[in-house]
């Protein structure tokens, strides 16, 4: 009897000791501190990682792509260490507002609605919305359309039902899921970014798809910051300018998009967006 008692006593002590060690370790591990190993402050940038070729994950689980490279380059030039955070697109704005990260560098289109809620940098690339259909489809009537939720594409489809008569709209988490849906015959067409669609046409991976009709509308994609950090916007703008001037921007763009960027067009569009640059006094 005595041995059993001592045995259970030892087990109790062992469990409590284990708890005391594990619990703080659990809370502190994978921890986000403000400083990195080489003493430079950390800047966190979020992207979805499901938007090939602009934002995707590689074999190690790291975020790579155009957005990732731009984010890393911008942060490094600003004197920070870049920490890329993979977040679901539907929750990416909420994460920014609750300070889970500092910037969104995930191909977020500048819209008036979004400008009410956050600040945007000058656009870091230009693109457009395009409808893609399975090869052979000539008419948009009665199709099942895939679209990512919380995107400008979803808004466009909802506000232009006459362009998609009798359509059944299916909402997905990301373009990557849309591609899977195309491959498994769950949808007949989708609306997305022309760079993304072009990538899938070139790489295969989404079956035989082709663009349908002209670009629906142009999009200017910017880096988003909270309303309480206008100084970040100014720093990002200055960094983007420098990157365009010394050719780094063109390098990154060619690497992931495979085409030369139209820098003239970008500079012209930048002038339109000057009015959106926030003043340096921070608003709360």
């Amino acid at each position, binding site marked *: 009897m005595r041995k059993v008692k001592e045995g259970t006593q030892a087990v109790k002590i062992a469990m409590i000791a284990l708890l005391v060690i594990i619990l703080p370790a659990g809370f502190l591990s994978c921890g986000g501190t403000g400083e990195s190993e080489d003493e430079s402050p950390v800047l966190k940038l979020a992207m979805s990682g*499901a938007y090939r070729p602009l934002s995707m994950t590689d074999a190690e689980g790291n975020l790579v792509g155009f957005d990732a490279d731009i984010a890393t380059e911008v942060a490094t030039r600003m004197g920070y260490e870049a920490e890329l955070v993979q977040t679901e697109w539907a929750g990416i704005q909420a994460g920014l507002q609750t300070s889970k990260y500092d910037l969104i560098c995930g191909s977020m289109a500048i819209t008036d609605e979004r400008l009410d809620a956050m600040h945007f940098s000058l656009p870091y690339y230009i693109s457009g919305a395009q409808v893609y259909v399975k090869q052979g489809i000539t008419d948009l009537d009665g199709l099942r359309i895939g679209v990512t939720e919380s995107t400008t594409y979803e808004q466009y489809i909802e506000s232009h039902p006459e362009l998609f008569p009798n359509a059944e709209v299916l909402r997905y988490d990301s373009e990557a899921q849309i591609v899977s849906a195309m491959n498994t015959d769950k949808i007949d067409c989708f609306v997305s970014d022309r760079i993304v669609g072009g990538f899938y046409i070139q790489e295969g991976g989404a079956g035989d798809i082709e663009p349908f009709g002209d670009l629906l509308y142009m999009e200017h994609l910017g880096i988003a910051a909270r309303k309480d950090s206008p100084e970040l916007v100014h720093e990002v703008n200055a960094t983007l300018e420098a990157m365009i001037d010394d050719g780094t921007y063109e390098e990154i763009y060619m690497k992931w998009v495979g085409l030369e960027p139209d820098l003239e067009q970008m500079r012209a569009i930048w002038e339109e967006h000057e009015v959106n640059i926030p003043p340096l006094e921070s608003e709360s």
Partner: protein
Amino acid sequence: MPDNRRHQASLIRTASPYAFIGCCIIALIFATPSVVFAQDGDTEFITDVSGMLKLLLKGAWLTLALSVITGIVALITGSLVGIGTSARSVVIRSLSNLFIWLIRGTPLLVQLFISYFAFATIVNRMFDAEVINAFGAALIALIINTTAYNAETIRGGINSVEKGQWDAAASLGMGRNKIMRRVILPQAFSISLPSLGNNLVVLIKDTSLVGAITLIELTYTARNIMNQTAKPFLPFLLAAVFYLIIISLVTLGTKAWEKHMQRSKQAVGGNI
């Protein structure tokens, strides 16, 4: 000792299917050629099953970490709350039951969002530093959730100890606390063991929800692999196998513990 040998033999019999699956998977990982990771910042994408398994293993670590920490902590806190439901003080009883009702009545995903977007944000803003990161927020939500389910299980266990035990212990002159500690709780715990093991298994699968708050665990990793390789079936099949292995090992452990408790039951001839 014929009894012992039978006991050991039956454990081995139950162990072999799990061991077999485990060995197959380990062989798979080491048999297929590895993905070579190039230097100089060249991006490597997954090209074969072994690449998938490597990345899934990374995600599995996070799943394991969340499950183990939550499992251990929630066992203790769940027991405390469960005991609280049969406390003498009305306040403690009501609070315990209120807690169980609230947490069991709301979905874990909602609790995760509240923990991550509301609670963690408020605390971080109060201290102007990242006190609670995504991992911490997930732990908080998972621990609170599993505590409530464990508490309800233990409450059921306490209630199913026969009234005779209370009367017999009281007639021996034991005070209420002593009765609880020495007579009722050991029996209640033994009765609750299968259900507690069940809660643990459910917890391990619940960790798949934390992908919604930026934690890249097993299921979310499988999604990333699907995005990378355009294969919708294989990554999830592999992830399911990982979950199966983890849960099988855990089930083996709890079944062994139950058998151990059963042995003392046969020896003593009571409900222990």
